[in-house]
């Protein structure tokens, strides 16, 4: 019982972060980012190379965060250039994700599954790192939503066209948001894929869970920081249900 309790908590933390990223992207950048799964895989691959080639772990982590930020930003620029609405943007992100996944697969042809081998990040440490990211993300959001920027973000969440009319630079926030959420997801991938076999489609499962959680949480129609707290609550319920089923 105790073991499953811990695993529920760690899965809640993991899925909360994922769902928060999905939701942030949807609310601020205005599309469902279906490339997040591939970004997670990207983090995993960078992690694989860092550990198997014995690079500095921290530098590897940083590379993954920066690289995925840039990738997210590129996606946003594509979306802005080609897509006209929520749906088109989402389809573009799906194409982008599939493309990224394929590039990962084609450039790493040693085998479909990559395994880091020894337990480079011990389970305890991994869960603490997840919790740390969780805290960082939530404190960051809390700080932002309490600042001037937060008012603008809330404005964008409620009505982005209106926000634009009132002079909020929605595009800047959307760009930063796509980059930032990609960074978070890649960090998750970097840390968590050390415990499992790494393959290009590794991110789909947490992505779908994240989307489901974010969708359930949005039923409550709250905006701002409160919404992201609700996501954690839903993630807890979701993890509980999963632990009973499986």
């Amino acid at each position: 019982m105790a073991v499953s309790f811990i695993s529920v908590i760690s899965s809640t933390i993991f899925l909360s972060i994922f769902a928060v990223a999905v939701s942030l992207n949807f609310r601020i950048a205005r599309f469902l980012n279906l490339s997040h799964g591939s970004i997670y895989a990207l983090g995993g691959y960078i992690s694989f190379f860092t550990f198997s080639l014995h690079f500095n772990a921290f530098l590897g982590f940083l590379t993954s965060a920066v690289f995925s930020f840039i990738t997210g930003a590129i996606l946003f620029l594509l979306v802005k250039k080609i897509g006209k609405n929520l749906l088109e943007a989402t389809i573009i992100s799906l194409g982008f994700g599939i493309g990224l996944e394929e590039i990962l697969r084609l450039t790493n042809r040693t085998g479909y599954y990559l395994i880091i081998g020894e337990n480079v990040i011990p389970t305890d440490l991994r869960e603490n790192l997840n919790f740390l990211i969780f805290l960082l993300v939530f404190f960051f959001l809390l700080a932002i939503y309490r600042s001037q920027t937060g008012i603008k973000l809330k404005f964008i969440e409620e009505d982005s066209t209106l926000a634009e009319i009132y002079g909020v630079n929605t595009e800047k926030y959307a760009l930063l948001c796509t980059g930032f959420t990609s960074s978070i997801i890649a960090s998750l991938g970097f840390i968590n894929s050390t415990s499992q076999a790494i393959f290009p489609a590794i991110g789909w499962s947490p992505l779908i869970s994240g989307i489901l959680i974010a969708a359930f949480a949005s039923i409550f129609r709250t905006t701002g920081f409160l919404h992201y707290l609700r996501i954690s609550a839903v993630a807890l319920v979701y993890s509980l249900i999963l632990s009973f089923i499986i």
Partner: protein
Amino acid sequence: MNPEVEEKITPLRIYRKTISSKKRKFAFELLSLIVILSAIILTGNFFLIWLTSLALIYSSLTLSWAFMEDMGGRTSLGHTIPFGLSAYLSAILLILTKRPESVLFSWIAAGMVSAIIFYILSRIDRVGFVFITFIVGASAWLISPLILLKVNGELIGGEEGFSIFTISLERIYIISSTFMILLFAFFSLFSLNYRSLVFKAMRDDEKAARASGIKIDRLKLYISIISCIPASISGGLYALLFSHVSPDSFSIHIAIFPFIASVFSRDESLSGRIVGSFILVFISNYMNSLLPESYLLLYAAILILSPRIVRMRFFRMEILGG
């Protein structure tokens, strides 16, 4: 003066003329299709026949998908639900019962179950529908490796999937080409029939359709059934062609296939969608021979550019008409 030459051009005449010219075009397309498909089997080229069978199965999936798009205005990214469900169900029943007839039952059963799922999902608005069908389809893909069977004390299924009996290539070719031709004929004739107008009206504007007294709930049910059953049969044929069923039949690349195959075809043109499916299958195969599975890069590129392409060829401005 010959009174027939002088006949007035009335709206009704114009309408009837358009319909009959469309019917001629359909007859021509049908005939060409039959000729081409017969020619292919006569070549006796095993690989060509195999690849054409695959393209035929994918075309059937695209046509079923297109019915939902053209008649319901609903873009589904989850047609892997009937497709994969039927593949899995038929394989499992075949293994358990060892009776080939069970295949027919599984095609219909999987189609009906999916139709109910789609009918429920179609109550959501159009944009939401795209998302939710994608999510349901992708969930099925993620869950499918958990399907295990115990046969003679041995666990089978999982990532590996199930193997079923092989049937001769000629037979599968004839079945899938007949099926595809029938689908093409049925959907084309349906679209030319006056009965399709209420569907198209609903597709264009559900509210305006209701204001005219069109019972859209019932139409959505019909659309779900008419689109899901053939998609389910396509999935069953897919399983027979490979003699194998794996989580692959729920995969995202099959889910997006009809969308990609239709991106280049003209609005509502079924023949265009068949050509699109064939081109996609043949190009994918060629790219595969250069670099395994590199065709997914092509899919990715088309997906990314799809809004542009759609805007170039439709008079409506956005995917889903905005």
